[in-house]
């Protein structure tokens, strides 16, 4: 199972505590994880990716294995440790604002 860490506000919206576990078919990519996440938690549609363009919202970042992969292609395979579930895919809100 893929492990996904969501920021507090999105955990509240989705009604979950802690990490989210998702079944995702290979290849495991940003897009395949987010598609599975939105299918499981439809209230998150539009909160991470824009409803219309499906692009990452500007103040949301993606971390994988201690790397910021926000600017990688959404179809690039993520590290094996993410695909195996050893490491979580982290969705994080940028530190900004008041």
């Amino acid at each position, binding site marked *: 199972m893929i492990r996904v860490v969501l920021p507090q506000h999105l955990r509240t919206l989705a009604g979950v505590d802690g990490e989210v576990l998702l079944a995702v078919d290979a290849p495991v990519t940003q897009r395949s994880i987010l598609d599975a996440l939105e299918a499981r*938690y439809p209230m*998150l*549609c539009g909160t991470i990716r824009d409803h219309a363009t499906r692009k990452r919202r500007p103040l*949301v970042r993606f971390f994988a294995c201690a790397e910021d992969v926000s600017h990688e292609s959404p179809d690039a395979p993520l590290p094996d440790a993410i695909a195996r579930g050893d490491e979580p895919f982290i969705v994080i809100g940028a530190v900004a604002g008041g």
Partner: protein
Amino acid sequence: MATIRVLVGTRKGAFILTADGKRKDWKVSGPHFAGWEIYHLKGSPADPDRIYASQSSSWFGQVIQRSNDGGKTWEQPGTPREDWVENAGMNPDTGEFVMPKGESNKFVYDTSPETGRPLTTHQWYDGTQHPWEFKRVWHLEPSPHDPDVVYAGVEDAALFKSTDGGKTWRELAGLRGHESGPQWQPGAGGMCLHTIVLDPNDPERIFVAISAAGAFRTDDGGKTWRPINRGLVSQFIPNPEAEVGHCVHRIAFHPSRPDTLFMQKHWDVMRSDDGGATWYEVSGNLPTDFGFPIDVHAHEPETIYVVPIKSDSEHYPPDGKLRVYRSRTGGHEWEPLTKGLPQENCYVNVLRDAMAVDLLDPCGIYFGTTGGQVYVSPDSGDTWAPIVRDLPPVLSVEVQTIR
């Protein structure tokens, strides 16, 4: 006895304040949607248990929330819990896999061939043209007649409508697609459609206001729109009497006189007696005619309220004194209302959606400040008292009178 429910949107959540008809002892519930910006929440006049709320964040975008029990519990109408993945599955009739998609949060400009309104551009701060980009819902206006019909005013300026209780939204694209659209430009707060006034006697007639484009009216339910800004004079645009470009802050009317409109413009308090076709200034003896909210007494159509603010460069009250001004003559002659309001060292602002009136007799007047206070006057403005003092900055105040 009647119950009063005050719906307060703030920078960090929503609060619901309730009292009986004396409006003296208040219960405070909240924060709801803690940590999110709640630009506006408003109850349906047709069903006071139905409340719509606009929840948004710069990080995570727009969420529409709906309550069917007067604000005790909330749901996203496009993704009710029973539609979550546990209940998703194959539709036996069509073979299609059914999955809810968060449609209630989806505000996408209508660029379909049917409307013929491609995504155009508007004027950006540097004078170049900039494409429309959805940012947030500023104002939700439920229909006076049907709890499932609600309008949403959004940034970048456009009007959306839902006829299914907020589950799905459709743009009334004739407004954004108006030929003057390329001349619209954002005010400092963004290019927002912040005011929606529905004529209770004529569902085809809607007034809206946009910063900084001006006021518009439709007489055909939103298909076609006309700018209604004749008589407005704005020194900050090259042609002060231009058809569009005016920074209208708020429009209000009394439901019994839908042709008489009152406007707080960036500067100037204005009045129209012909449904917005022409406007004239009624600032009269106000100490300053800059401000944001304007509202009308529930039982006296010529009694109106504003909160004068020193200037557009200094968004606080003149002389550090928080004063509501009341006119009982529909403008021109104004009196300061100060009893119970701070009369020294007060430098808060009152935003455009942060004033409301109840329907009791005597009429209650309410407003919230950027300092987190919500004030009530149970006697039409003669005396005031704070309901709460220390909320996050208040963005909007609405009142429900429940009998």
